[in-house]
């Protein structure tokens, strides 16, 4: 294995990043809605080199039953990485990192899900990271939010997620693998379109001002992603609207 450290990499060339982006530019994003037949809602997302698929099942009965909540649905979130998604094979199954990510990702989505509509039930969100290239948790949350909407789960708003980082003393949007590994900080956030933050993590080294700048930059990135999530949902459901309506749909008051 080649061992590198920060000093071996030059992150900027002619003011542009390793992949030709500006500091405040996202990697290309592709979002597809309803990619799985069995799930109640699903979404496939590509953010740069990340390929992530999300499925939502529910609201459905809770097993084991002691997890039931009398006044609301519980939300479960499972972030899972495929063994082949990273350079060195990842041992299959949950590790501590994926359990922490599952917890914070679930907490990023829960504030907008109207769980009180479905007492005693569960909404399951499953994330499979098929290919990882820094930013899998944010890609997972973006896909999950779209899959929840696709499943018809009532939500107060969308959730969009994006990270900012620091490389060569510069705050950059949406760090890629090299920038994440050898950079100076990583700060992922998730938020509603109106700017309420539901996920915030950080590691590395930032001054207070840099921290604020990174939050602001990540928020701008998340805003852009929101537009793409919305467009992807509109695309699927406007196509459906053009088809003749089914007569067996019961509309309740």
């Amino acid at each position, binding site marked *: 294995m080649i061992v590198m450290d920060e000093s071996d990499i030059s992150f900027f060339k002619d003011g542009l990043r390793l992949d030709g982006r500006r500091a405040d530019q996202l990697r290309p994003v592709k979002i597809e809605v309803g990619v799985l037949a069995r799930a109640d809602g699903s979404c496939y997302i590509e953010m740069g080199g990340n390929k992530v698929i999300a499925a939502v099942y529910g609201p459905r009965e809770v097993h084991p039953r002691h997890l039931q909540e009398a006044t609301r649905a519980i939300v479960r979130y499972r972030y899972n990485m495929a063994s082949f998604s990273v350079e060195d094979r990842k041992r299959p199954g949950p590790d501590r990192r994926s359990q922490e990510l599952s917890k914070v990702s679930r907490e990023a989505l829960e504030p907008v899900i109207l769980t009180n509509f479905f007492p005693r039930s569960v909404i399951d969100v499953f994330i499979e990271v098929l290919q990882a290239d820094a930013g899998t948790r944010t890609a997972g949350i973006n896909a999950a939010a779209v899959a929840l909407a696709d499943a018809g789960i009532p939500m107060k708003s969308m959730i969009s997620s994006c990270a900012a980082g620091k490389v060569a003393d510069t705050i950059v949007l949406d760090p890629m693998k090299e920038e994440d590994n050898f950079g100076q900080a990583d700060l992922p956030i998730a938020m509603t379109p109106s700017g309420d933050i*539901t996920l915030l993590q950080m590691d590395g080294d930032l001054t207070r001002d840099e921290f604020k700048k990174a939050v602001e930059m990540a928020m701008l990135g998340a805003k852009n992603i929101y537009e793409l999530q919305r467009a992807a949902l509109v695309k699927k459901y406007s196509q459906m609207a053009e088809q003749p309506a089914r007569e067996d749909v019961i509309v309740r008051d």
Partner: protein
Amino acid sequence: MSVTSVISEIKKDFIYNLLLKGERIDGRAFDEYREISIQRDVIRKAEGSALVKIGSSQVLVGIKMQPGEPFPDTPNKGVIITNAELVPLASPSFEPGPPNEVGIELARVVDRGVRESKAVDLEALCIVPGKQVWIIFIDVHILDDCGNLIDAASLGAIAALLSTKVPAARFGLGEDYVLPIRDIPIATTAIEFNDVLMFDPGVDEEAIANTRLTIISTAQGNICGSQKSGAGMLKPEQIYRIIDIACEKAKEIREKFLEA
């Protein structure tokens, strides 16, 4: 379910009504910590240890070290492994068994502070490059959960590391020496409830709040880690306010307890 404690609606209302009057249940100011005490070297068999109390919360952190293999991508660096055990003696809501997500998050946030601040000079822990390095086990034992375990555990970890002696003699690697520590990261945690920010939440305050934000800052006053926890929302302005107070509080704690 999780380790959030059971709290009655009446008590919730009580805390809430006090908040509206600008008060906390134990009379503290919103940015005031409970009394902190740190006892170091409480466990003789450990390479380093610290018993931290914040109010009635008690956390014991023990450090053990042994030689082992480095990770292939960092052949000349020592290894840090952080674990946290929420043992059932510490709270009616803790259960025996493998760590749940709350324990895992706690361990990973403590680890983040130590690792990202580069408090331990990992390169100084290399014995034979690529073959043998020192492995540091930071084991966090929660003894009494009266709220704000993250701050107590993080404080315990750095206090224990500051008192750690590398047990070189025991492994035939020369004389014991003091573990070199280069920074003192301090975690400070606030909860948000109805636009009120409260630092060092007690267990009942934790139970009513949806959101908690931990900021870990270094001796330089920079931020080396943060973690939002709980299914709630924070406005950016609230985050910035927490950061500003957190860095000040961390400085006070560091100067009072760890820089002697």
